[in-house]
């Protein structure tokens, strides 16, 4: 828990700074370019004006800005940078002091944006002259301390979270006083009085439930000076005024040095760093066919540089240069012509931080940001000391915010990894990958509407997705050779896509039944099954056996997908078709059944090729139905149905009776002895011996 000081900042503004900042604007210069000659700044785009007689004009008066205007301009810029980079996590409030105290905003999220800030300053109006000696800034500072003792939303949440860390939430903050200070004595007085007030108000806060005592406060005294005059008091810091307070005194002069001073301040307070993107090619406004290269400076959290700057200092010294007039360094990285497909690939990034451009309205800056806002990604290249180059960062916009991503620049420990085909299962070629692709699409995630506060149920949408996925994979053979059912392709659609649903409608039940019935009629017609060549299981099987395998698997599949009563209807339909009795009790054993299925799959996996071949040829049903009892389905349907014995716990019929009934019913049918069996040794006959031989021959020749 770092509890950053920058989490909460209060600006206390002297609203009596009516004095001139010494910054003059020549209004004449703006309208000069009317007659004749074109201006450098886009004047050429005006309509051609007929030459007019030169009128001698009365010169316009230059306008001057007040210190107050300078202060507000600087503060809004400070806030712009902070809110662009830390939306919602770094909060700023404003208190203006003249005769009274004006609290301009709160810690609430909706107050933390530029349009809102501009509106409250508009409502406040220009600075007021209230006469000497009537201003009491200490009142403002006290109000600021009180503001800091109010917890922010996140502090409140953590404090009341009933977890172990709730009591350990620290309250830190910063108060920035903007005024004009003339003597060092004033600084001393502010410092001392502030410290007293801090101690006092902490006691008050500690005695309440809803306020938090301040653990540390950083007081910044910003001395606003008019342009042209030199400040007599040097910059100074007191890092340890006491254990709970630090103090800093900084001069800020109107005019050209205002912006760099402000940048210094915001970089220091929020631990930001500067990157200059160099060599951005831009079309010239005047001459669209040529392009020149521009630089754009960006701010972002310092951490975006750690990957390239921490390490051997001499290796990266050449990247850093000082900005003109500023105390901070900027790292210069080169623009790389973006690849168009960068955004659909997965780039390896170690971090991503929001950025903002420093001179946000300049043409190069807005060109770059618009390029990014339109969805293009820009790679940034870091020149190495050795002269080689490496892509070190990437600029990309996600949903309206621009981020700087840090890329990996050093050697990867994952280099030269083994291919997936070199590991377990790598040589299997009949994975159901297209089917799995469909499963991926059916289990795609999307953001759900935010649950109403307080009404959050025990299960999140993401947990719902886990359920969803588990329903979709209840019965999912991963290779074609381990399934007959899923080799049928369109013949079993839409049954397999309907059955995985949580609930199904009557119409869908009908659709599923139709699938079963059409399969039945296919069998009756003796249509060949679209068994793929790759499927070992179907290879060389008799058509009846193929159908049998499908039916067995379908039954298993339906038994596993009993998510609602309508699902059971599909199973019932299947059972009726096959003269079986639906056993919904099965549902309870469903887990056991999966285990059983998995075990069988594992057993199958451990078999040698030979065993597998035998297993497959013997038909998939062997495990469930003793081979002696196999009656080809076609035969069964033509002859009288076996006596229907109610199964399950409720029936009260013993297993022995069932068995005997079954056996006697089979024996009662005329049954020709299978040719192969009469010749068999130990009741096992090798089927398709020639085929096996052929295969071996073929394999042998392939190896050569």
């Amino acid at each position: 828990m770092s509890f950053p000081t920058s989490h909460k900042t209060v600006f206390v503004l002297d609203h009596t700074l009516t004095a001139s900042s010494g910054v003059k604007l020549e209004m004449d210069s703006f309208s000069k370019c009317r007659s004749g000659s074109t201006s450098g700044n886009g004047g050429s785009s005006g309509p051609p004006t007929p030459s007019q007689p030169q009128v001698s004009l009365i010169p316009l008066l230059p306008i001057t800005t007040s210190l107050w205007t300078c202060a507000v301009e600087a503060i809004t810029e400070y806030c712009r940078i902070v809110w662009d980079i830390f939306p919602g996590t770094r909060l700023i409030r404003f208190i203006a002091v003249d005769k009274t105290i004006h609290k301009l905003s709160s810690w609430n999220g909706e107050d933390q944006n530029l349009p809102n800030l501009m509106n409250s300053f508009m409502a406040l109006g220009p600075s007021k002259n209230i006469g000497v000696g009537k201003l009491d800034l200490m009142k403002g500072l006290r109000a600021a301390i009180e503001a800091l003792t109010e917890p922010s939303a996140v502090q409140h949440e953590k404090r009341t979270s009933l977890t172990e860390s709730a009591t350990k939430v620290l309250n830190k903050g910063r108060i920035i006083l903007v005024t004009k200070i003339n003597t060092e004595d004033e600084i001393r007085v502010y410092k001392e009085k502030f410290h007293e007030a801090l101690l006092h108000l902490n006691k008050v806060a500690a005695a309440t439930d809803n306020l938090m005592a301040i653990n540390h406060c950083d007081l910044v005294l910003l001395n606003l000076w008019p342009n042209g005059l030199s400040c007599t008091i040097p910059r100074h810091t007191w890092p340890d005024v006491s254990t709970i307070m630090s103090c800093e005194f900084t001069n800020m002069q109107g005019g050209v040095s205002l912006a760099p001073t402000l940048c210094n301040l915001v970089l220091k307070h929020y631990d930001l760093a500067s990157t200059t993107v160099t060599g951005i090619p831009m079309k010239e406004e005047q001459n669209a066919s040529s392009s020149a290269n521009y630089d754009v400076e960006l701010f972002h959290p310092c951490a975006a540089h750690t990957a390239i700057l921490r390490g051997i200092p001499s290796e990266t010294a050449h990247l850093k240069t000082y900005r003109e007039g500023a105390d901070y360094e900027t790292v210069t990285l080169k623009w790389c012509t973006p690849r168009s497909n960068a955004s659909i690939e997965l780039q390896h990034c170690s971090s991503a931080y929001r950025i903002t451009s420093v001179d946000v309205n300049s043409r190069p800056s807005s060109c770059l940001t618009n390029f990014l806002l339109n969805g293009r990604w820009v790679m940034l290249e870091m020149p190495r000391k050795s002269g080689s180059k490496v892509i070190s960062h990437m600029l990309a916009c996600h949903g309206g915010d621009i981020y700087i991503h840090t890329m990996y620049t050093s050697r990867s420990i994952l280099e030269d990894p083994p291919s997936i085909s070199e590991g377990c299962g790598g040589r299997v070629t009949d994975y159901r990958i297209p089917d799995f692709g469909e499963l991926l699409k059916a289990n795609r995630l999307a953001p759900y509407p935010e649950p109403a506060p307080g009404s959050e149920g025990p299960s999140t949408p993401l947990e719902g997705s886990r359920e969803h996925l588990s329903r979709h994979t209840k019965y999912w053979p991963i290779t074609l050779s381990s399934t007959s059912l899923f080799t049928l392709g369109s013949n079993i659609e839409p049954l397999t896509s309907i059955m995985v649903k949580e609930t199904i409608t009557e119409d869908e039940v009908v659709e599923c039944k139709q699938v079963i019935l059409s399969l039945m009629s296919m069998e009756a017609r003796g249509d060949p099954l679209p068994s793929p060549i790759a499927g070992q299981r179907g290879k060389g099987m008799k058509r009846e056996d193929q159908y049998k395998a499908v039916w067995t698997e379908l039954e298993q599949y339906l038994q596993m997908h009993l998510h609602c009563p309508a699902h059971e209807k599909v199973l019932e339909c299947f059972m009726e078709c096959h003269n079986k009795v639906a056993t919904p009790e099965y549902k309870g054993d469903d887990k056991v059944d999966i285990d059983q299925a998995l075990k069988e799959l594992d057993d199958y996996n451990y078999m040698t090729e030979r065993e597998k071949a035998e297993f497959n040829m013997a038909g998939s049903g062997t495990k469930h139905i003793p081979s002696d009892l196999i009656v080809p389905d076609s035969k069964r349907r033509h002859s009288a149905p076996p006596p229907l014995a109610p199964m399950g716990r409720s029936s009260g019929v013993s297993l022995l009776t069932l068995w005997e009934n079954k056996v006697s019913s089979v024996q009662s049918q005329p049954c020709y002895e299978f040719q192969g069996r009469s010749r068999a040794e130990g009741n096992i006959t090798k089927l398709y011996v020639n085929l096996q031989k052929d295969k071996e021959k073929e394999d042998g020749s392939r190896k050569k």
Partner: protein
Amino acid sequence: MPTVVLLDVSLSMSRGVDAVSPCQEEEDTESQILRKDLAVHGCNILLDHFIQHCKLEFASLIVFSSVYKVLMPFTRDFEAIKGALNLVDECDKTCIEVGLMGAAQHILEEWGNGTPCQVVLVTDGNAGTGQHHLQKSMMSSHSRGASQFPLPFPFPAKLNIVCIANPNEPCLQTSKPLYQRLIELNGEGDILVPEGNLTKQSVSEMFEHLIKNNFSSYSGVLHCGSLSAPVTLSPPPQPYCRHHDFEIMRVSVDPTITVLGFLNTGDVSSPPAFSRHLVLPLSAKGDMVMLPKADAGSDDEGTGNDEGKIPSFCVLLHGGLKRENMVALSQVGENWYGILYSWADNKKKSNLMLSLFVPGVDVIPWMGKLSNLGPASQLPVNPYGPSDTSSPFPLKVHEKKSYALNSVVWVRQGGLQSDIQKILRHARKLPDKTQSFYKELNRVRKAALAYGFSELLEGLANVLERECTLLPPTSHPDAAIQLQHAYEALRSHDRKDSRQNITPLKTTFSGND
């Protein structure tokens, strides 16, 4: 994690195992074994472990005395390191600082500052003649001097100090606090001393202990609904322990990795990852299998091939993700998520990769809270659309940032000037640009009011008034009317409600707005 074996080759390593009489020349075979032989023996145990279980790791061998030398740069050829161990020369005195410096330098050059590493310092339990100097430089590093003391390492690293010494040796007793201080400085690590007397056996045990605590590989199960596969992660995932703004995150990766759903690769938009790991399927026996490359000789057809022919869910998942260009959002621990995806180092070999996010549900801003993602097919309207043409990602931010807002910034030179010139440009194209003219005018007016800059309003009114007088005779009558309306409105700012924007004057000429 890349590992540096930092081996002390000072003269004292050539002592016999018996501390009491280092220069014994008896026939006793046990005392013939030198400490450096035991060190090499231990290192070989570690390297054999890599050969057996961590084939994809990197190790390097650095020897040090008063100077350091990289004998083997980082490699996966552990046999080569074993070979190099046999060729180690004897040098002068132990200078741990130099050795650590060498390890830091070598790791930084090779892996940068973001890769977690292991440093195994093998020494004889005698901090050596340089002890005082070491102590001094440790002190100065504490006082944040300019000295370049290598600890803590400028990258995440564990420092294990392995002492080839009898536990009761006096010089070990004096050196131990120093070692302890080194480990404290680095933050992570341990001191290892043999249990009982210094023998081949006790050294082996000590190294086994080292391996167990620091080099054990990850073994877990990848679940996706009812499908699953045993997997290992390379490199093994490290626990996460960092201070966030308002909480301390302490989590480690569970032995189960659960796929929760899938996302388009384009939609996740290259999210930042805390670490990346290869996901390698394990055989049913729990071994990592590396089949010979397809074109290798057919001698290995025996056992290896069987493992390759048993279907693994990992391969299916990889194939599906690659085919659909998607990633699988997965949970790896409490409140810790990551994505699985197909990744190719080069065009030929692709494999399954796991990128772990920073722990927490709110870690990728453009995906929203991860816990708030659910099956798209169960939403009233599937946001991916019927033909997969749309996407719910990225989540749009509520408040536009300054660079998308056309915000006013006059604190820099030229800001105000270009804003006024823009107004004038539009003014000269009236009435065609009436809407743009008023839009820019109001933008500047609003900012001027917010900044308490009423002089600007007056100044701007003057400029527009002059524009009006300078209108060419051929200009549209509406131009003059709108300009006059604008400058009059600017001047009356304090009389009317200043929040109201100035709206274009409806004239009989302005038909085609």
